[in-house]
């Protein structure tokens, strides 16, 4: 994980950067097409019996650039970090690029540990990494799928079979929406933490089950997940977690982009917090 969002939320919202980079288009004949999603650039070209896809990534986790498909003359794989060739008969030149949420929970670490006193509720905005999929229209087939910025692995729980493999993320635990910065390769989750225990809850990491959430986009091109509610009732790490159905509460006019990556029940009782005041 490299400098991921360590200084994210201090800049004002840049309206010019609110671009919807996803969508369907037709690859021009004899040329390629490229899309930019933050640190990721994907180039696609159609040949007679194959699709050729080139992927280039930068190390800039804070990149804000997002550009929709544009025609390019560059051959995919010429200077790509990753080159994919998919055999495909037919003449359909249409592709769709779309975002998806990742397939594991995301463990977010506040840059500074955060405390929720007893009987307090707090609303946080936490960003999560996303996947980018390139899909041929006819036949509908995923040509390439990968993270816009590769998240690091992390383990949540004891280092044995009780724990779970997750992705790592870092957040400032923004409390105010106006402090958010649009990043095309991140999806924002509104997290409501309710501490009904009789001791303070110290958050040094929090596990978001984003793989069970739908993905939405707001009118300004921001990506949102469904709201997640953590309800801590007792003096332990376990919390009732609910992925709230419906649209994100902050974006009532959002449109759905993708379903859950992993199907499951929306209400579970799991270990969600990495630090709690067990010493008291």
């Amino acid at each position, binding site marked *: 994980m490299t400098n991921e969002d360590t200084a994210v939320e201090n800049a004002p919202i840049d309206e010019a950067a609110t671009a919807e980079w996803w969508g369907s288009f037709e690859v021009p004949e004899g040329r390629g097409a490229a899309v930019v999603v933050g640190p990721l650039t994907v180039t696609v070209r159609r040949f007679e019996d194959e699709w050729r896809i080139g992927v280039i990534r930068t190390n800039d986790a804070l990149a804000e650039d997002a550009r929709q498909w544009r025609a390019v003359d560059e051959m995919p794989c010429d200077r790509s970090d990753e080159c994919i060739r998919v055999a495909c008969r037919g003449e359909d030149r249409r592709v769709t690029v779309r975002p998806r949420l990742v397939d594991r929970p995301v463990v977010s670490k506040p840059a500074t540990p955060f405390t929720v006193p007893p009987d307090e509720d707090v609303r946080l905005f936490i960003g999560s990494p996303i996947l980018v999929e390139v899909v041929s229209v006819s036949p509908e087939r995923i040509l390439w799928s990968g993270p816009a910025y590769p998240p690091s*692995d*992390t*383990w949540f729980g004891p280092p044995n*079979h009780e724990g779970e493999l997750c992705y790592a993320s870092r957040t400032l635990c923004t409390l105010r929406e106006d402090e958010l910065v649009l990043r095309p390769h991140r999806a924002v989750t509104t997290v409501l933490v309710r501490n009904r225990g009789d001791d303070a809850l110290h958050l040094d990491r929090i596990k978001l089950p984003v793989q069970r959430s739908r993905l939405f986009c707001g009118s300004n091109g921001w990506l949102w997940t469904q709201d997640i509610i953590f309800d801590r009732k007792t003096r332990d790490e376990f919390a009732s977690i609910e992925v709230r159905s419906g649209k994100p509460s902050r974006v009532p006019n959002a449109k759905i982009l993708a379903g859950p990556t992993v199907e499951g029940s929306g209400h579970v009782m799991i270990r969600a917090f990495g630090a709690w005041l067990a010493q008291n």
Partner: protein
Amino acid sequence: MNAIQDFFEQLTDNDEFALGLRVLVAVVIAVLAAAFVPRVLPVRRFHPQHQLIVRRVIRYAIVLMGMAWALRELGFSMEVLLGTAGLMTVAIGFAAQTSASNLISGLFLMGEQPFRIGDVIRVDTLIGEVVSIDLMSARIKTYDNLLIRIPNETLLKANVTNVTHYPIRRLDMKINVAFTEKISRVREVLLQVADNNHVCMVDPEPLIICLGFGPYCVELQFSVWATHKNYVHLRNQMHEEVKEAFDAHDIRIPYPHQALVSGRGHETIPVRIDPTAAEQAHADLATTRATSNAASSESETSTATAQGAGEQ
């Protein structure tokens, strides 16, 4: 047609032939059933090791039942056979103690399950993936594609390390830095390397332990975590990235060296390596050896001549 029919009627009227035919059919059925029944059993949801055991037990049971029925049909008394088998077991038990020990050890291993098929284990200096666990031994396939059979008795007595039992694993790297380096700065650089590596896990957190002061360096242990799938990848990447980071930050990894100390005040003896003097010393040594060899050859020749003259 009537002749063929008559022939078969004569055969079936013959009691001995009918008996033989029944026995043969029974044996064939038992063999076929032992081959096919274990394959169609609904055991796919079991662990591969348990599937193997269940299939083998059923196969052996079917074969034994078939043989027992055939022997009974042939007129052998099962009570006598069992009694004989009991006596033979005692005799064989004394003669085959090792095999019996392996068999019993195998039963204990199956119950205790320190490892399963598919796990990677280390037994003394042997390391490999477990491909089968049998009643007498276990077989492991090494990374260079060798098959090693380890008796169960050995496994029960030895320290067996199950490398893949837990889902994640720690990589420990021993890193030596010069005494002139600031340990806090080295720590920052190492943590940045871990942070930049996506395969390296964020939690459990990377760990840096100062092991102490060696004869020529500060000894550090740098520990990072990864899943088993990424362990080898991480191992290669981390060493490479640490080296590159040290080069970029001018952090020295010292060569082994020693200081010669002499005198009452323990003043060091200054040593200077003079390349020309070293070359001259080499040349002198070569000349000396050549001269010595030549002298030896002349001596041998003289001796041989004297001996030849004497013989003549």
